[in-house]
């Protein structure tokens, strides 16, 4: 992907996500909750019937509750091996492209603070598993209607399902996941199940860039869909 396209794509998403994260409004339209605001960890959240509404931070938190949650997926994506390549090339020009001279006089890579913190990727991967689990729960709640009765499905349910499928695919295709599943083994022959899983994850890992962009777009689309429905700009079409 050309560096300019990468830089523009990331800038657009960061701009949109910053606006939505600080907005603190229009993030819930029963039964749909925006992935930016789930789980809600402060008590200043809107009531989300049966949703992931756990005010662990209590009432002292006065800013948008999204800020408490977004740090986890943000850290996961910021330290992701694909995104590192993307922003090192597209934004930091280190290098701008293969065999193209970089403009920096000095280079220490990921040997020193702060970039040595990129090694924390696996911890963000563990946290991303938790967040993906909660967003799966949110997607399942999309099968309830606005009164909490099961047996509902709207366009929003499909949007949340597509989003969570892509988020899981991106999370599982992570290089740290591939390592934890089986990459660290020396003898695959003694761990046939992990070897098979490692092979499957490797197939996904080869598409990590595609999944990174797809899930980034899908999470933005899911949030925007909830925003449109919540603000009354769009009526959620109901299938049953």
């Amino acid at each position, binding site marked *: 992907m050309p560096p300019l396209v990468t830089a523009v794509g990331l800038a657009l998403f960061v701009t949109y996500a910053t606006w939505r994260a600080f907005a603190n409004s229009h993030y819930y339209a029963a039964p749909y909750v925006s992935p930016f605001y789930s789980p809600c960890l402060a008590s200043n959240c809107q009531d989300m019937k049966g949703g992931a509404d756990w005010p662990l931070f209590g009432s002292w938190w006065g800013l948008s509750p999204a800020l408490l949650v977004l740090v986890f997926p943000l850290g996961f994506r910021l330290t992701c*091996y694909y995104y*590192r*390549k993307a922003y*090192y*090339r597209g934004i930091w020009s*280190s*290098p701008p492209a*293969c*065999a*193209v*001279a*970089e403009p*920096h006089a*000095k*280079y*220490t*890579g*990921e*040997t020193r603070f702060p*970039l*040595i913190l990129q*090694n*924390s*990727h*696996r911890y963000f991967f563990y946290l991303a598993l938790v967040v993906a689990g909660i967003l799966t729960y949110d997607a399942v709640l999309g099968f309830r209607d606005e009164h909490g009765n099961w047996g509902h499905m709207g366009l929003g349910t499909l949007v949340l399902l597509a989003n969570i499928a892509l988020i899981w695919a991106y999370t599982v295709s992570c*290089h*740290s996941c*591939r*390592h934890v599943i089986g*990459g*660290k083994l*020396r*003898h*695959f*022959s003694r761990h046939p199940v992990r*070897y098979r899983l490692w092979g499957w994850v490797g197939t996904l*890992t*080869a598409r990590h860039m595609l999944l990174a962009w797809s899930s980034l777009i899908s999470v933005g689309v899911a949030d925007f869909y909830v925003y449109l429905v919540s603000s009354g700009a769009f009526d959620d079409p109901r299938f049953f």
Partner: protein
Amino acid sequence: MSSYTAHFKVWRGDADGGGLADYQVEVNDGEVVLDIIHRLQATQAADLAVRWNCKAGKCGSCSAEVNGRPRLMCMTRMSVFSREETVTVTPMRTFPVIRDLVTDVSFNYTKAREVPAFVPPQGVAAGEYRMAQQDVERSQEFRKCIECFLCQNTCHVVRDHDENKPAFSGPRFLMRVAELDMHPLDAAAEAGLDRAASAQDEHGLGYCNITKCCTEVCPEGIHITDNALIPLKERAVDRKYDPLVWLGSKIRRRGQ
């Protein structure tokens, strides 16, 4: 068979300096860049220095930069260029020029010597090694390397920063460390050598910012970044930054 005359610019010079020289040279169907360099030698520039050997993409000798892209000259077909396009051939930029297209790649031999060799397992004689295919296939991918050093040449860590050469072994030799660390019979750990930790401490793995240029230029199609460098980074994290793995290994060692 059709032929045409192409405009070539070839870097001529030595360690003291040089520049691009212009040539008009005949090109025939099916030829590769190395064929044209040989035609130049035969017809216009008998003293043009170029390193080559197999002309089949297997010896790794004819590495150069063709229109700014690091490539094997014998594997770069002339048909990828339009007939009007000027083809510029320069030596690999990361290594000192000896003459014309020939560079001094001894940096790589120095780095190769710094990687401790395979440590034979105790109690298993040579010839008695038995390994399951799935245990060796990861290392086998890295054995496809023809040591053309295009990955070393492209890696910006040393290409743009000569001062990093002492500390950084480059993708080819980090891949060698990965190959040995993944080898089912390598007994380095028993001999007190932690290859994953040494990749970071002694071979400069932390300098790699996984921008995948090594993978992009590899003529053998080895997934250097995905299958060697990133797994090696993850193994280094196991040793150095993961307290759970560290604790687990301590407990297991105590139980042995």
